[in-house]
Structure formats: C-alpha cells, structure tokens
C-alpha cells in the first residue's frame, strides 16, 4: 500500500513586505561588511578632510576681515563661486580619496562573492542578475555620494547660512544641479569601474591593487604619451584627467585641457559600457562540472 503523506506545509501568518527593492539586502550587507574593517573606517573618516577644509574656507570667506592677517593677499583663493565648488569636486586629492575608499570598501564586492561561491546562493533566491548588480552598485553609490553630493549640498547650505542671504543661490541657481550631476557621473563611472575590476579576480587584495593601479597608471600613461606626441588629446587615456574635464564642463568652468569635454564623456561612457558587458558575462553562478 502506498504511503500516505501528510501535506504539511506550514501556513504562514506573518506580514510579507512587498519586494520593491529586492537588491537592498545586497546593498545592506555590502555596506555592513565594509564598516567591519578597521582600516576602512579610518580611511572613510579621513576622506572627509577635503570637505572640512573647504567648509572652513567657506567660513573664512565670509569673515575675511577677521582673518585678514592670516590670508595676506591670498583671499582670491577663497572667493566663493562655482569655481570653488569645481575645485572641491575635481581636485586630485578628493578623487584619490574616493578611489581609496572604494578600493578598501568596495573592492571585494564581487571578488568576495566569487571567492566564497556566494553567487549560487543569491541566484537560487528571488534575486535577478540585474538586482544583484544594482545592489552592488548601490554600495558604491552610497560611498561616492556621501563624499560628493552630501558635502556639496552641505557646502551650499552653509554658504547661505554664513552669508545670511540667498544672494549666492540666486546668482548661481544651477549650482546644486551641477553638484548632483557631477556626483551622479562619479557614482556611475566608479560604480562600473570598481565592479568591473572586482569581477576579474577572486582575490580582493589583488582587486585593491588593480583599482589603484589602473587609476594611477592611466595618468602616468597620459603623461608619457603627451610627452611623446605633444597633443592634449592623450588625456583621454587618463581616468582622473577625463573626470576633471567632465567636472569642469558640468560646473561651467574653463576646461583644464584644450580638448572638447564631449571626448571625455565618450571615454567614460565607453568604459562603463565595456564594464557592463564584462559584468553581464562574469556574473553568473559558478559553473562547476561534477
């Protein structure tokens, strides 16, 4: 006689949250794991130094009389205008600090999943490849925006507070959009850049070196090629130079090099497109033949 089996599914009475953001657990875990690293916490805190310096500069600019003896003719440096913001966003140190934060905090985003074969756990759950990538990208967005958009908006607000009027805002009403636009550009670019490099190795340390290496080497290559060919177009080989060109354009400033900004946008877009293709191919469950 056949076994009679009890249909024993337990009826769940709990509250099922609508899965509007299926990628959120990926983001949450990514951020949590980054902040577990002591070294990362120190780097992350240090990455706010430029914003603090620029905030102090902003305060001084409104109290020029009080700081006259310290400034001694260099008050032009802290003339608050869109250029001041462009300088904040495109200076080498901020870009380098963003790379530093991402290398230590996000370098292992995919590499660690590959190392621990976690992809098969994720993809055997209600999570698509798109959700997975959005989740990882959001971790990078969190770090980049917290170092760019947040201080940028805070600087504008403090400028208005220190000045005690809306004159600055009325003079440059498009400035918040520039801040958000360039922050978004950095987020998208670094998102693809870091995820691409994170997907090429299972070793997060190797990825960390790659993130730095590619960033710095591209600039070195630019210097060498410029020396050989004597043309500013060689900047297209440099990641930071392209970002600075794009930043200057978005803040309405004179471009640092005599090359149309559209070329830099095209190079950055091409890197993102290439990364998307590679990620699409690399992000799949580990294929083990057994």
């Amino acid at each position, binding site marked *: 006689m056949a076994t009679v*089996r*009890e*249909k*024993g*599914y*337990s009826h*769940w009475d*709990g*509250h*099922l*949250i*609508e*899965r509007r953001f*299926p990628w*959120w*657990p990926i983001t*949450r*875990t990514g951020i949590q*794991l980054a902040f*577990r690293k002591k070294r990362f916490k120190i780097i992350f805190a240090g990455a706010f130094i430029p914003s603090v310096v620029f905030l102090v500069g902003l305060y001084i600019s409104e109290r020029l009389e009080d700081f006259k003896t310290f400034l001694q003719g260099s008050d032009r440096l802290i003339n608050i205008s869109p250029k001041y913001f462009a300088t904040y966003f495109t200076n080498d140190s901020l870009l380098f600090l963003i790379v530093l934060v991402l290398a230590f905090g996000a370098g292992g985003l995919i590499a*660690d999943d590959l190392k*621990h*074969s*976690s*992809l*098969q*756990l*994720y*993809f*055997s*759950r*209600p*999570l*698509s490849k798109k*959700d997975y990538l959005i989740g990882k990208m959001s971790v990078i967005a969190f770090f980049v925006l917290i170092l760019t958009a947040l201080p940028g908006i805070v600087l504008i607000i403090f400028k208005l507070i220190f000045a005690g009027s809306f004159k600055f805002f009325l003079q440059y009403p498009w400035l918040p959009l520039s801040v958000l636009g360039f922050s978004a550009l950095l987020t998208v670019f670094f998102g693809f850049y870091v995820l691409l490099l994170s997907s090429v190795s299972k070793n997060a340390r190797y990825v960390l070196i790659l993130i730095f290496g590619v960033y710095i080497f591209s600039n070195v290559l630019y210097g060498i090629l410029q020396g050989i060919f004597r043309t500013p177009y060689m900047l297209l080989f440099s990641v930071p130079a392209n970002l600075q060109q794009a930043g200057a354009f978005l803040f309405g400033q004179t471009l640092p090099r005599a090359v149309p900004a559209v070329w830099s946008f095209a190079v950055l877009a091409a890197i993102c497109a290439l990364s998307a293709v590679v990620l699409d191919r690399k992000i*799949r*469950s*580990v*294929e*083990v*033949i*057994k």
Partner: protein
Amino acid sequence: MTAVIAAASLSKWYGNVLGLNDVTLEIEDGITGLLGPNGAGKSTFMKLITGQMKPNIGTVTVRGRKVWNNPELFQGIGFCPEQDVFYEDVTGWEFLTGLLRFYGYAGTEIRDRAARALDIVGLTADKDRLIRGYSRGMRQRIKFAQAVAHDPSILILDEPLSGLDPLGKRKLIRLIKGFRDQGRTVLVSSHVLPEIEALTSRIVLIHQGKILAQGDIPYVRELIEAHPHQISVRSSDPRALAARFVGDPSIQKMTFGPDGRTLVVETHKRDEFFGRLTGVVLEAGIEVDEISSPDDNLQSVFEYLVGK
C-alpha cells in the same frame, strides 16, 4: 501525477565539455536521489533546475513554470549547494538572517525563521560564532538551514551528507525524510550509494551527462536484464544443490563461496530460478540457511550500467 520538476531534452556544455546531454526527466513529490560519480553532471543538473545557468538546449520547468530568468519562482525552492558558500567573517545568525531578507519578510519574521532553522539543525548554541570557526559538519548544517529557513516546498540538496560524521548523517537523513513526510519534494544528489539508499529507493542514475536509468531500485534492476543477477544460497550441501541446476538453461554460471557452504548463481531469469529453487530444496532435502542477492544494491546496479 503532475511532475514537480520537469526537464525536456536538456543539454548544457561548457566550451567543448559536455555537462549534460539530452536529459529528459520528471521528478515527483517525495525524495528522489540523483546518483552518479564525480563529473557525472549532477551539479550541472541542479544548477539548471535552480535557474543558475541557462540550458544550451531544452527546457526545465518547476510546477509548470519555466525556471530560467524567473527569480520569483525561488520563493518556494531551497537550494543547498555542495561547496562552502560562506563569508567566513559573519556569524551563523547573520548568514541566515541576511539570506532571509531576500524573501521580503518583516524583521521579526526573519528572526523567527532564522531561529527555527537553527533549531532544526541543532546550531542554536553556536549561532553567534563566526562561521570561520565552524567545523565541517556545522558548515553542512548551516547550509541546510539556509535551504529550509524560508519553508520551501521543493528542496534541492547537492551532496548534503558529505563531510558529516555518522551521527550527523543520521540526523540529517531523518530531517530530510521529515520534509518528505510533510509532502515536500526533495532532490538529493550523492556519489555515495549507501547515502542515497538510506534516503530513498527512487533514484536517477546519471553518468557522463546522461541519465542511465531512473525508477526505484528493483525497476532499475529490471532494466539491466542483459546482466545476470547474482544470487547467493547458503545451505548444508551447496554441491548437491549445484548438481540439480547444472542442466538448467537459465543459469549462466555457478561458483562456490570461500566458506564452502555458499553457492553463488548468476542467472538472467531470477524469478524462474527462485521458482525452481523451492522445489529443488524440498526434493533434495537440503537445508537452506540464507538466500541473498548480493548484487541487488545500488552499487551493483550502478556498476552494471556504467559498464564496469
């Protein structure tokens, strides 16, 4: 009965390596054992039915719904992979609660389910330890816990018993059978035959990416009629017994066991032999101590089918 999991002409290859070759298979409620040596295609098949890979040819459906690119389907499927899949620096608790978040449960529900799953696998006391410090058996159990924590109706278990000590194996076998008794579907793979035998008699034999046979063990045995059955008869006078069978055309071969009391017969017609054996034993007045079919186990079936 409608198949819970259905694969139709499923093929998957990795470059020039064929992982799975034209597999058509239906898996129903209860426990089904997927048996084959390493490299047979078991994990490939499991990855295809858990939607982690796209088949090159063919389709796979779960409860009539296509698997590939259908993440919502996995609300009701639990998968326990063979390899360790952990971030070593998280605790068992964090591992489980983190994975439960993908199902959209509220916070309290996540904690309740994680606690229940840890209780099922007996890891409650170790929930706050880093997975780095877990033993092989504990790692297997936490993997099993993540597969059942969301109460799936289908469980896909890839070599779940590997690395467990005998006691751990027995506990896990009991758990898996408990899931079957609740009316769930369990597909479990192994290359260790006694493990599958302990779980189920319904097996799928897979080798070199092909399904060699499927059904329960006696059914599979019927499929290999070309290979003679081995029957061992321990009696008071095995030579007298052998003399009675010498002229029997259904007998392929007879040998005597090393103990001098056992006659080992190879025959294509097992039922006929057993029918005759009763009469012969009665006629000759031979005392029979034991009749066994030493090859009527999974190992023998498997070896016959893969041509060993």
